[in-house]
């Protein structure tokens, strides 16, 4: 009877021991984290070496490398069969690959550890790094958004009290304007560099903000080219002039008054704000808004 009881107790404790061991395995697994950090080619056509970094808190052992492309997922090798693939925390390991594995930019390379933890990455990203911005820095093409401003095509013009352009005044370069110039209109040049046509509305403004007293900013509202719906259409890849005349958004009734240059002698920043819609290729429209800060300020001279 005593031996039976001993046997039962031993079986029970043995069970507890294996459950504890399994919990330990799960705990260790949760501490594993590996990241693919590099991929080298030989003669630019075949994979030669893959680099893996252990970013976890426990030593790992790499046991499998796969390649998955659009047509198949293949087990390439178990590198532990020909080299020591243990990686200590915060360390990296370069593992050579069998010869003849073609480099496919769109394929993913997958590395798995002995505890079944994986990491995967596109081969092209590992070889060439993340994609770079398509454009290089060009001070003449500063834009963030679909409308690109042409900085060298920027003028102002005297207007009458009803907002019409004064025929006796020419267009002046916009970089400086005399103090007390009175009613005036601003003309800027933009190009639609988006892949969709744009329509801007009457709330689009040309804002002049004095550096010394920003609260005294003056807005000039859009003079719409389409007087029916009070908008302006900007086709893709075409350059257009935009005219700003009004002190408040243009009304169909035509009761608006033009904005007047009333600022004292000062230097101002200029902000262009556009509101409107994109014309999507499926015929729908989506909202559009953009702000363009001028790189250079305008000056009100004495």
């Amino acid at each position, binding site marked *: 009877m005593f031996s039976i009881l001993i046997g039962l107790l031993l*079986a029970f404790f043995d069970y507890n021991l*294996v459950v504890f061991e*399994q919990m330990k395995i799960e705990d260790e697994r949760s501490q594993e984290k590996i990241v693919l950090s590099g991929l080298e080619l030989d003669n630019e056509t075949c994979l030669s070496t893959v680099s893996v970094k252990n970013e976890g808190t426990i030593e790992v052992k790499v046991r*499998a490398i796969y390649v998955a492309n659009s047509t198949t*997922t293949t*087990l390439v090798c*178990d590198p532990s069969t020909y080299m020591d693939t243990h990686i200590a925390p915060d360390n990296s390991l370069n593992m050579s690959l069998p010869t003849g594995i073609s480099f496919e930019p769109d394929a993913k390379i997958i590395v798995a550890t002995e505890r079944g933890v994986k990491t995967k990455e596109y081969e092209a990203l590992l070889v060439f790094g993340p994609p770079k911005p398509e454009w290089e820095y060009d001070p003449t093409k500063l834009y963030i958004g679909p409308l690109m401003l042409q900085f060298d095509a920027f003028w102002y013009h005297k207007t009458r009290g009803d907002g019409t352009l004064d025929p006796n005044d020419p267009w002046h370069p916009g970089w400086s304007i005399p103090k007390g110039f009175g009613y005036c209109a601003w003309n800027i040049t933009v190009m639609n560099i988006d892949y969709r046509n744009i329509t801007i509305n009457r709330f689009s403004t040309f804002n002049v903000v004095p550096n010394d007293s920003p609260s005294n900013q003056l807005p000039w509202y859009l003079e719409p080219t389409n007087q029916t719906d009070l908008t302006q259409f900007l086709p893709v890849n075409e350059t257009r002039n935009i005219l700003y005349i009004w002190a408040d958004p243009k009304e169909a009734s035509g009761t608006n008054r033009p904005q007047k240059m009333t600022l004292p002698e000062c230097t101002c920043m200029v902000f262009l704000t556009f509101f409107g819609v994109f014309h999507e290729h499926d015929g729908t429209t989506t909202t559009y808004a953009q702000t363009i800060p001028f790189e250079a300020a305008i000056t009100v001279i004495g």
Partner: protein
Amino acid sequence: MNTLKVNSDRKALSPIFATLIILAIVTVLFIPVFIWSTGLTGETKSFWHISGEIATERIVIEEVNLRGGIQNCTIYVRNIGKTAIIVDDVFISSPSNSLHVYEKADFNTDPDSVVQGDLMTVTISDLGGLNPVGNVTYTVQVFTSRGVGDTYQVVA
């Protein structure tokens, strides 16, 4: 008149013989109890043993090669538990909720059994009624002989 005289010095059974008889009776009575308890103990030990094996059985599906228009499938299964495993069943379900069951006879495993840390390749050479469609997500489940399994989603 006859009188019955009891002789207190006389005994019906000797004490030794009586003790032997008692021991014999107890032993005979205990035999079925012993047999029952031994069986019960064996069953209990077996229960703990099997429970322990199931508790330490753990697999992970590492990768699945299932592609649209291709009538075979390869599943890479790693044993990450203490117990050696044998794969018995593979289930593949499609987004239309059709479940395809593949039993031991329907696939090959290489090797037949793997211990902790090792990889098993399960190859289904003919998917039967399942025709994988490209860019559709399928759920693959692999189960061992003790009913332990893992699930993996793959885009064909």
